[in-house]
């Protein structure tokens, strides 16, 4: 049974169809990237999966159970946003502990759990700082630790790196992959950066204008693109990057 399955999902805003009857499945422990230009509907999917938005039609299942009508907190999923959305008035540690207050069985162990997570993401020394004093990369680590506190088996990422510089992105990529292996989490990762999607994903879903063009492994997308759009959007971009890189290598002494 798949971890998550989406059947015939649709969403319309006024005249604009944002999601046009899409279906896909995600396996347990899989890393799926959703790739597409702005406005293609990828964030809408994420919000519907998380329960922050109601679809006009379709069903979302987790472990076979219909969760379309469940509240966000009942879904056992976590989400990491682009601009971190940290609680600026609380210390790093309080940010990570916050969610545990609302869970009776975890409340007593809150500081212990937070300490473990902060050590894991390398922020233990900064635990008493407010988020405003941290770098972008450090803030995103706090956001990830805060999401992990409730131990969700599915974690959603909404372009988590787009506000970060290149070096930080590379480090954080590795970290997210390590966490996925360690916790065995299923991850759905939204991005418009082809390179990022190719480097991190088990499978990539290419979207445009509310429709899915192709879902496949990075290799499948390269060797067997489903249509012209996939070829153009995914491969041309990568090719340009590869070409400029090879030119750079040739020119360098």
């Amino acid at each position: 049974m798949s971890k998550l399955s989406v059947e015939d999902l649709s969403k319309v805003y006024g005249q604009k169809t944002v999601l046009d009857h899409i279906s896909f499945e995600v396996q347990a422990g899989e890393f799926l990237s959703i790739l597409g230009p702005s406005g293609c509907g990828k964030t809408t999917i994420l919000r519907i999966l998380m329960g922050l938005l109601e679809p006009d039609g379709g069903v979302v299942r987790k472990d076979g159970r219909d969760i379309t009508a469940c509240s966000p907190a009942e879904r056992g999923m976590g989400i990491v946003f682009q601009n971190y959305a940290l609680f600026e008035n609380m210390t790093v540690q309080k940010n990570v502990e916050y969610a545990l207050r609302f869970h009776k069985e975890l409340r007593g162990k809150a500081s212990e759990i937070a300490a473990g997570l902060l050590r894991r993401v390398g922020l233990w020394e900064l635990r008493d700082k407010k988020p405003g004093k941290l770098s972008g990369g450090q803030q995103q680590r706090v956001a990830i630790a805060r999401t992990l506190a409730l131990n969700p088996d599915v974690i959603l990422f909404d372009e988590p790196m787009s506000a970060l510089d290149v070096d930080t992105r590379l480090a954080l990529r590795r970290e997210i992959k390590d966490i996925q292996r360690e916790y065995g989490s299923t991850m759905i990762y939204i991005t418009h950066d082809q390179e990022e999607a190719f480097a991190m994903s088990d499978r990539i879903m290419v979207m445009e204008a509310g429709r899915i063009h192709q879902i496949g492994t990075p290799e499948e997308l390269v060797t067997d693109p489903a249509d012209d759009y996939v070829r153009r959007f995914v491969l041309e971009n990568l090719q340009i990057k590869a070409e400029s890189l090879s030119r750079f290598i040739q020119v360098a002494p």
Partner: protein
Amino acid sequence: MRKRPVSSTILKLALLAFFAAAVLLPLLRMLAYMRNTDVLKVLGGAAFRKACLNSLKVGLLTTAVSIPLAYALAWCVTRTHLRLRGLWSVLFSLPMLIPSISQGSGLIILFGANGVLTRLLHLGGNIYGLHGIVIGEAMYVTPIAFLMFADVLTYEDYTPYEAAQVLGIPRLRQFTAVTLPFLRRPLISAVFTVFSLTVTDYGVPLTIGGKVKTLPVLMYEDVIGLLDFGKGSVIGAVLLIPAVLAFLADLSNRDAGGNSFVARPFVIRQNKTRDGLACALCAAVGIFMLLPVAAFGVLSFMTNYPIDMSFTLGNAAKALRMNGGTYLVNSLLISAGVGILGVLIATVTAYCSTRLLSPAARLLHLLSITSMAIPGLVLGLSYVLFFKTSFLYGTMAILILVNMIHFFASSYLMLYNTFGKFNEHLEAVGLTLGASRLRIVWDVILPQCRGTMLEAFSYFFVNSMITISAVSFLANADTKPVALLIPQYEAQSFLECSAFISLLILCCNLLVKAAVHLLKSAIARQDG
């Protein structure tokens, strides 16, 4: 969000209904009241035409005086190495802590027929009339324009000037090419605000105008003296025009989006001459602004100026005995009520219009800043006509309500800006972590708004202490706020008592300002 909870829709509808009942309906009632009056006869009357002309003159002259002066002061405070900047800023905003009518009586005490400075400097004592009104109004509105300019100049980006210097562009050209375009929006806002405040104020012209009557004075006399609500409504409708224009100018300015993001703070070069001149100007204006307050002190605590200049507490005791004490308690209760209720409603409204987006939220935003377009006197008359038969009329509650609406827009906008700056996903994150929207508001959003909420409280409180406009038609012998004793004492020629009341109001406001300042610093330390 998922399905929008029904409660948030109900909340927004309730707020919309509240603002409709507290702002729109009273105003419409006043406009409808004109039906019973021969509008053309009022507009064509000699008294009206003369007052209209006087108001225009006062408005234009005051704007012409106060805008350059306010800009010069703001420039001195932000663009020179002037020492004690904080002190100057406090000094220039001091007049905002006393009623406008006190500026008029201050000038009379100083420059009137028997004035302190008239005798000291052997002046003619000829302050009554148009020039007196303009001086008084300028003292009333310059601080407001000063704060607007100082705020804008503090956040001006230095980068374009650096670029201009690199390109070797002369200073004058820098001013016309960089500074003026940058100042255009705030300048328009300041000009309209100052003009509209001046034209709709009756405090200064009532005391110092002598035979020169302006429209608000005419309206005040028609309503208070003659109980001619019809004629009052017509003048009120005319007074709406400059205020609505100011509102629209401000709205179009604001919507275009202000850029308050500082790329590089200003670099101020060393220039002793410039600093000296700035200091001289600030000192001159500062002293002039302090003069009325000093005059209140002199008059309040001298036995019988200028005959017996020995110290006494008799005037203070007399003022307190003649209802001053009771009305001071009224004022404190009203101001505290306006502060608490105002902050509460402004916070909820600003939250709804910034973080529960929908067409209703936009309408709510527009309705809550509409009160900015209604002069206090007009709002007061609207309330009289609309609420006359209701249980609210003649109570302290209606005074709290009318002041809250009168001063709502500024406080609301402070909170609106603060709420707008929070990360848009906070509530969503909360929901995924098991924390309700209300929980996130309480745990995360409100703790970060404490400073703004205190600032909003202080604005509501101080303005409710000094206002005489919206409340003048609504207060009765039991509910009267203390500021209304100033025109009453002046009419009874108890100048020393009215001076003492002005001082009293100033002291209360200074205490509240100081308390808010201390609390805000404590919060800032805590947030560290």
